[in-house]
């Protein structure tokens, strides 16, 4: 069996607003659009994914929060409705998701060998989190590939952003080993915003773009610092300053997704593909991808 590999890594933020704005049939609320800079970037990345041969999407989500270890979805299908607990007015999504349970189990096994506390989630009534659904919908609206969802252990809360960085990196290395042994081609997804301070009020029409802007300027400056490092291919340096970024901008990187993905990909020293940056209810959101194949790697924006 040939070795498995990571064929693409995606930074895929999950404000439910982008799904709401797309008006897919699965989502009940109807919008007049909004957040095009982000959505059009997503649409372009989704087109690139269509041109890539892969077996599964593996996603690390901040909205399945576990305190007792790292959990993996462990049943082949989940079909239900996801209502966002924070923005239920814009996200009530009927989903039907296939899971690559073999790959999930392999990752759990490898993580466990590396000393990480793990658990398979095998309760059929479990609701898949809206972070997973939003990022996967935007990257693959046809839902024609199985996924693996990995919960985010809240190391940053229990210990510190530094400990989170170390543990997420260890998990990333374990997942990379599992992918290699599985013989599968995998797309990794780190699902989160960058700076993450929200406005606590919402305009009557959530998609009123005249009201949308970053929460404050320092959040923006930090976000741009990260984008620059991504363009320059300095992912090791970026991960090294991530604890400070996370603290300064109460960033959603606190969950560990970006560190997990970068460690799994060996801290790329090539440029990231930048697809779009936009604020959503004050938070900073970037769609980006890391393509290990230098032939297909592009300068997008």
């Amino acid at each position, binding site marked *: 069996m040939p070795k498995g590999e990571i064929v693409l890594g995606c930074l895929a933020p999950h404000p439910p607003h982008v799904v709401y704005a797309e008006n897919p049939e699965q989502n009940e609320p109807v919008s007049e659009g909004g957040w095009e800079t982000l959505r059009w970037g997503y649409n372009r990345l989704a087109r690139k994914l269509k041109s890539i041969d892969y077996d599964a999407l593996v996603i690390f989500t901040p909205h*399945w*929060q*576990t*305190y*007792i*270890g790292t*959990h993996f979805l462990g049943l082949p299908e989940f079909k239900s*409705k996801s*209502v966002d*607990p*924070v*923005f*239920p*007015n814009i996200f*009530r999504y009927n989903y039907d998701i296939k899971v690559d349970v073999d790959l999930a189990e392999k990752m759990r096994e490898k993580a466990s060998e590396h000393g990480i*506390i793990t*658990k398979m*989630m*095998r*309760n059929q*009534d*479990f*609701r898949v989190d809206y972070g997973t659904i939003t990022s996967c919908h935007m990257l693959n609206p046809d839902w024609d590939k199985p996924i693996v969802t990995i*919960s985010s*252990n*809240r190391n940053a*809360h*229990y210990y510190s952003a530094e400990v989170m960085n170390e543990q997420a990196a260890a998990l990333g290395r374990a997942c990379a080993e599992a992918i290699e042994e599985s013989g599968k081609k995998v797309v990794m997804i780190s699902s989160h915003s960058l700076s993450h301070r*929200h406005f*606590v*009020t*919402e305009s009557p029409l959530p998609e009123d773009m005249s009201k949308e802007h970053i929460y*404050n*300027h*320092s959040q923006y400056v930090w976000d741009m610092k990260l984008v620059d490092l991504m363009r320059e291919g300095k992912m090791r340096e970026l991960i090294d300053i991530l604890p400070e970024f996370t603290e300064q901008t109460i960033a959603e990187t606190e969950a560990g997704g970006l560190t997990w993905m970068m460690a799994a990909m060996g801290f790329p020293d090539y440029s990231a593909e930048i697809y779009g940056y936009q604020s959503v*209810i004050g938070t900073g959101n970037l769609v980006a991808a890391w393509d290990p194949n230098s032939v297909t790697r592009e300068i997008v924006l």
Partner: protein
Amino acid sequence: MEDAEVLFGIYCPPHPQPLLSPDANHGYSKLRAAFETCRERIEQSDADLLIVYSTTWPSIIGHQIQAHPEPEWVHVDDDFHYLGSMPYKFKMDVDFAECLVDSAKSRGLHSRTIAYDGFPIDTGSVVALKLLNPDNRIPACIVSSNMYANRSETIVLGKSIRDALSKQKKKAVVVVVSSLSNRMFTEHIDPTEDRIHSPKDDEWNRKILEFFADGRLEDLSQLSREIHGQIRVQKVVAYKPAWWMAATMGQHNNYDGEVLAYEALHGSGGAVVTLTPSTGSVGDKEFDEDDVEYYHGDRDVLTKGML
């Protein structure tokens, strides 16, 4: 306006063990028995509604109030999914929820009702309502805990609940769903070996329970920041349950307190406590932090002094 009538208050833990696995550990069954005692007391009271403030329902857009008349779903906890599912069907006091949104707005808070089929009611609220009000004998109201709210906003939220109770002339039992110390073990454990995560957490929990037993609710409210620093994992900006409970029940120390159970729940401190308004104050503390009646929003400290 007549003063609000809160018959008594309950402080109880959000973890699902007392509901799903009460026999797995002697402590869990003691917590379960304490929930049962509270259920009986609610049945014996002439309460018109239960008002639940749950730390496991975070909100961002202001303060969300559950207003679906009969929310129904099968809930599964993120961590403890292997203990089983929690099917629920509750009855909400929609009139009260709408009145509360108005009251909150008139005190400067951003607030809205939530009434969607399939809305994910949180583990803490599900556990509390299933154990305290299993037959939906009286309707309930669940309010969210805004993740950015701090002392002022939380106290004003409590006061707006008193306003709504007075307006509607309803008698309430208030329920705060929160751990004391909230650090859990980060490993899966044999439930028979459950214990409080550290002696320090245990000591602080017992100190808090002494205050509860003495009915010193306002003193606990004033100690919230200290409690947050000492025994709360820093998930949110502050330990808010005592602020909310004091502002909703009345900001004083005139209560009869009763600690019905105190046990470990995967390392965290789980206590079931009741507070009943009485007369005769105890306490030896006075405080200089101003009380607050109206919420003025962010003070825009971040944008002042920037270039």
